[in-house]
């Protein structure tokens, strides 16, 4: 398990550093697309994806970077996409809100909230019908749980006992709107349970807890269990969309923000890390920085895509 912890730490740190680098460079106005950063929420992505195998599939939505990277999506292709380049994972058609890496089992992310939840169920259904041993995980937010299509999807997944892992990242807000302004006083996983899901509710900033939960869920799913729904309490540190911290807007109580900052998933795991010699931590940071620098350089040097390519993408 010692090595596992180190790997989890590394994956979280890498995602954190990637997103910080995006934020730092965003002001240059060369990434001309919205970015929804996951800073503060890395543990959910990393904990869940660590429990999946490569053959398993993942879907996500507007806030997809962490999920994409945690599942093994190519960093270079992601950055090139954000820069609108030919080398991007969607060759520039998609931008940050559209991520895909089929090779890595990252099956797609698009920004209509709720749009990928039924797709995940459909992918699991296809796996079942084709006799493939695959689990499909789908990440979505607390706000997304309000969409009727999510409710519809859960019913079908349970009805057909499909190997789906629903992962709800409850960060208490949808954009600037607090959960209590949008949802009745109810428990999200409680609703999922009433629909017949196996449910777990956990501290989403504790990557080990997430990993353990996901691992047991995935193993049950491989054995034909009903779908799992795990609700992870977490918090977004930066603004909903864009590179900045927007605490000055005051839509979130100050002490709530402070409390969650203190619960940073990366820092929390670091305190539990036992890496010897300590330089290895610095080496890890260094390797990550290098990888990121290189990926940005590639993205910046990438080719600009052509309008004429677009037509070929429409029909197959």
């Amino acid at each position: 398990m010692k090595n596992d912890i180190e790997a989890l730490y590394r994956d979280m740190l890498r995602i954190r550093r990637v997103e910080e680098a995006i934020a730092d460079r965003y002001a240059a106005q060369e990434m001309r697309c919205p970015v929804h950063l996951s800073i503060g929420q890395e543990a959910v992505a990393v904990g869940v994806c660590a429990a999946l195998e490569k053959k398993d599939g993942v879907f996500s939505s507007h806030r997809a970077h962490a999920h994409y990277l945690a599942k093994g999506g190519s960093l270079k292709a992601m950055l090139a996409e954000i820069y609108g380049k030919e080398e991007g994972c969607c060759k520039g058609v998609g931008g940050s809100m559209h991520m895909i890496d089929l090779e890595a089992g990252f099956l797609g992310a698009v920004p209509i909230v709720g749009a990928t939840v039924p797709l995940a169920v459909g992918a699991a259904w296809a796996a079942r019908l084709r006799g493939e041993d695959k689990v499909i995980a789908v990440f979505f937010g607390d706000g997304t749980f309000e969409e009727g299509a999510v409710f519809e999807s859960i019913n079908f997944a349970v009805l057909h006992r499909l190997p789906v892992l629903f992962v709800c990242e409850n960060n208490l807000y949808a954009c600037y709107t607090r959960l209590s302004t949008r949802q009745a006083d109810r428990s999200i996983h409680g609703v999922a349970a009433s629909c017949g899901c196996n449910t777990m509710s956990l501290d989403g900033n504790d990557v080990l807890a997430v990993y353990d939960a996901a691992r047991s869920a995935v193993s049950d799913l491989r054995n034909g269990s009903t779908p799992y729904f795990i609700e992870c309490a977490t918090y977004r540190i930066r603004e909903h969309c864009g590179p900045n911290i927007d605490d000055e807007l005051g839509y979130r109580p100050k002490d709530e923000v402070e409390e969650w900052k203190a619960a940073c998933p990366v820092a929390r795991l670091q305190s539990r890390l036992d890496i010897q010699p300590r330089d290895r931590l610095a080496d890890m940071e260094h390797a990550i920085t290098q990888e990121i620098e290189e990926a940005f350089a590639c993205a910046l040097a990438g080719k600009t895509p052509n309008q004429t390519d677009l037509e070929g993408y429409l029909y197959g």
Partner: protein
Amino acid sequence: MVEIRQITQAEAIREALEQAMLEDERVMLIGEGVPDPKGIFGTTSGLQEKFGNSRVFDMPLAENGMTGICIGAAISGMRPVIVHQRIDFALLCMDQLVNNAAKWRYMFAGQVNVPLVVRVIVGRGWGQGPQHAQSLQAMFAHVPGLKVVMPSSGYDAKGMLIAAIRDNNPVIYIEHRWLHGISDDVPCEPYSVPLDKAVIRRSGRHATVVAFSFMVVEALLAAKALADLGIDVEVIDARSVRPLDMETIVESVKRTGALIVADTSWKTGGIAGEIVAGVSETAFGFLRHPPLRVALPDLPAPTSHHLTRDYYPDALCLARAIATHLGSDVTDADLVSRLFRTTPHDVPQREFRGPF
């Protein structure tokens, strides 16, 4: 030798589904009522018995979610066919159809196909009314990434459904309820009909009538009556709505110099306007008459059979419109005597039974 026999279009559709499922085990069929005793007007009868309940499914009443689920299956190696008994129900899944199905391949730069067929039924039974008798092809036809077809013959009903299922893109396959009961010649073998080609059903010199779906039936009746009276119109069955085969249409208009479009939907903002626009742009110099649209009034369908009488343009309306438009001196009595319906106006064939 090709074996051919007369079957209804409902049977032709059923046969297409059956043969497509035999041909490719990835094909699956789902919809509210697919395996039920009525079998979607007979178009799905016996298929669950034949292919089992792991390929033929009923579904919850959850159109948007289920469409998304089918898209998810389609991008994961299956070829789902989903059926809605009324196109009106598809309004619930516009999000998944327009935001996801139409764009998934494009958004991801061609990496993933969405081989999905959405069967939707338009047209009228008895008293279906405002929410159960819309004909929304124009909404789908506006969306890049979708293909939209409206076959009118049994031959095409079968061939275009097979083609739609074999196609790698989302196809909205629109059936008209009043076509289901019509019998015509359909080969026994599986075959496919292109999804992007109009066909000339009747040649003529005086005008080009482009018709969609059930309006092809009415247009052919009208053309026959007009021919007796010396007006010789060409009837084009548009068959596909997206892409429109403007080439065939423009070609014809260049020969006839006149264009009439007969659609099953509301006039304003409908697909008839798109054809008129396309022809006006590209065959402008050839038009000897202004183009004309014969379509539904800009009102939702009423229910009372007294009110549907004048709501749906039939062969007689169409013939009148054409004759007037071409400045012919044919009398109304001439047309009425030829096109008088002996069946009530609200049933397609005498055997048709309400309420559906």
